[in-house]
């Protein structure tokens, strides 16, 4: 990580060109709250899904965070800090740590991820997680933006979690653990700010289902914003 910071700093010094000072490979910060929403279900969940980065064309530091805060219960979340490096026109590889927090416990994973734009314009991210007990997890996220108009955008999404071993403290069962399908319709008041409504279907599978028998669909409503 120290190396990364050093790289970022050195690059920033080298890239200052005089003849067109503002252009080129600028250091930038971007924060995106893709979802910040209320889920209309029995638990009355507030859910978020955000990412932020600091960096340049090739090298970036990313924070990813998603989680939920049911009414009356403490929040559970998955937060990652990764170093991201562009390796192909549409793809970045990422390496770092993931910190999972559930109601009662927490754990840390090492992560290796690939993130980018698949053919046919699917925003894609696949994360491989490994913990100290050699449990290996896979989390995949896919999202597509279909423009109804220039400002009204429908976003179907797909997320999948799977693990090689049980981890009962985290409520994780081996095999396919969870699939979440969503569809959100947002209206961009500005590019940077949209409000949306949608539906989501969330189902646990296998051992995970036995631990936590989740299989529900519900309405969601929220805002999306970035800087």
């Amino acid at each position, binding site marked *: 990580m120290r190396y990364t910071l050093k790289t970022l700093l050195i690059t920033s010094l*080298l*890239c200052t*060109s*005089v*003849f*067109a*000072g*503002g*252009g*080129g*490979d*600028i250091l*930038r910060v*971007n924060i995106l709250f893709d979802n910040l929403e209320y889920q209309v279900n029995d638990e009355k969940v507030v859910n978020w899904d955000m990412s932020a980065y600091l960096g340049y*064309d*090739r090298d970036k530091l990313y924070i990813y965070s998603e989680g939920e805060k049911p009414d009356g219960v403490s929040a559970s979340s998955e937060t990652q800090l990764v170093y991201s490096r*562009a*390796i*192909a*026109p*549409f*793809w970045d590889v990422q390496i770092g740590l993931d910190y999972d927090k559930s109601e009662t416990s927490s754990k840390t994973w090492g992560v290796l991820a690939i993130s980018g*734009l698949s*053919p*046919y*314009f699917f925003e894609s991210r696949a994360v491989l997680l490994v913990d100290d007990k050699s449990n290996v997890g896979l989390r995949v996220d896919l999202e597509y933006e*279909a*423009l*109804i*108009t*220039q*400002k009204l955008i*429908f976003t179907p999404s797909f997320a999948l979690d799977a693990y090689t071993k049980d981890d009962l403290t985290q409520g994780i069962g081996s095999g396919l653990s969870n699939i979440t399908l969503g569809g959100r319709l947002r209206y961009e008041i500005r*590019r940077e700010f949209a409000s949306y409504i949608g539906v989501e279907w969330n189902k646990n599978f296998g051992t995970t289902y036995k631990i936590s028998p989740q299989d529900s669909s519900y309405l969601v409503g929220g805002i999306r914003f*970035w800087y």
Partner: protein
Amino acid sequence: MVPLSRRTFVKGIVASAMLTTLPSHLNASTKITLRKKTQELSGSEFHLSINKTLVNVTGNERVATAVNSMLAGPTLRWREGERVTLHVTNNLDVSSSIHWHGIILPTDMDGVPSISFDGIPAGETFIYTFDVVQSGTYWYHSHSGFQEQTGVYGSIIIDAKEKDPYEYDREYVIALSDYSDEKPSTIYRKLKISADYYNFNQRTVGDFFSEIGEYGFLEAFKKRSIWNSMRMSDRDISDVTAYTYTFLMNGQNPASRFEALFKKGEKIRLRIINSSAMTFFDIRIPNLKMTVVATDGNNIQPVEVDEFRIGVAETYDVIVEPENETAYAIFAQSIDRSGYALGNLTSDASVLADIPQLDLRQQLTMTDMGMSMDMKEMSKMDSTKEISSMESKKEMPSMKKMDKNPKMSMKKKIPITPLEEANGFDNTMRAMNPQYRLDDPGVGLRDNGRRVLTYADLRSLVSTKNERKPDREIILHLTGNMDRYIWSINGIKYSDAKPLEFKYGERLRITYINDTMMNHPMHLHGMWSDLETGDDNFLVKKHTIVVQPGAKISFRVTVDAKGSWAYHCHLLYHMTDMFRKVVVV
């Protein structure tokens, strides 16, 4: 009407009235000057100052950077054969510069910081002095930071020593520009974060359904799949649009309209300069034919047209002869049809011309992707053998043109000097089958029923028969990654590139291959670019050459200027990376 034109109108109502007093919150110590009306200065000694200037183009006050507090800056009139001296004082808080675009001069007078000189530090004056060895229509602009976008630009007219071959009774400079209330650094940051931020003409679900209606599901799906599998958009015409830009003609917005008066029967020369940061314009004057007589300052054989496209930094001189005492609209719509600049050419100041409708938007085609028709067939059929004869025939007209163009290369091979190339994450693709498309007016102007100028129409007024044949050739791929908003040449950004070496005295052929989906106006400083437009005997001298998406184009350079020169794409937000330093050794 498209929705954005309403916006233009609303912006326009609060027109750019010249302010007479400084608002109270800006006291004298901030050094902010009031905007002045653009004037013409002539002679051989000029005093210019780059000032922080209060402007109001859209209804909002902003501090622009403007030469002599004028937006556009003063028009400078020089005489061919004289020596000019220009004292340029930088009243900004940061370093500045002025580059005399298209002017042949010594390397240390070219005004590019870190290449020709150190720039003009804040508060200091730099004296440019050089002999004027050419005539025609040119312009000047800052080569520092994004100052050109915030107002440091103006026009240059150089009167010829000899009698002008084209007679006219009256002349007007028509300087086009794109103005934004947003800071250029904000625009650039947004593009880096989300390259399609300003594009409100993206493909919708409805477009797909109407294509199904038109072509049937299978064909529509196949058409889409070529683009979608490559993650390319056929709607990506301009990076920055009228969502943030107000398009100006001589510093005036479409509501206040630049006014050009004429008397019936007069021949009027319009010196049209694209001093925009990012915007290509398509220009026409409804009900009036334009005779194009010069481009980039150099006379050409006259061509009568209805419309022409002007790339960023290009200039075109046209002569018009209105036969009626009425008003004509000088209509310059942006290439993406998101807005327009407007002037009123009228015999009576009280008469305003009707404003034409913006044209419908066109989409990029497979040709713009650097795939020809038969390539598309190939990708469909997955077999190289089975290119249908019908599809090959379709290619024939352009093939003929292509063959005609590099005529001499057929006769005698020009040795190609290989250059360093890279193919990393920062460039998306290579055009698979780039073609010479000199007779292609480009996206938005194809088959519009009007006579549109193309590069194939351009022929120098003077013969270039005795020009030397090229000694060698280099190939420059214009490359980039639109999704990440990174630009480069041969896959290498300027910051990572070695300088290009030209040999003093050589005749060089340069071929561009545009691997991107954008037009790039390429500008070589210090030397003329002799564009091959189909006839070696009439090569056209230009300083800025537009390279169409997926296309190929060639020109020749007589390397007759010692020193170091800038060489770059003139789109301001591409420039830093799509840039080379040329060293003449």
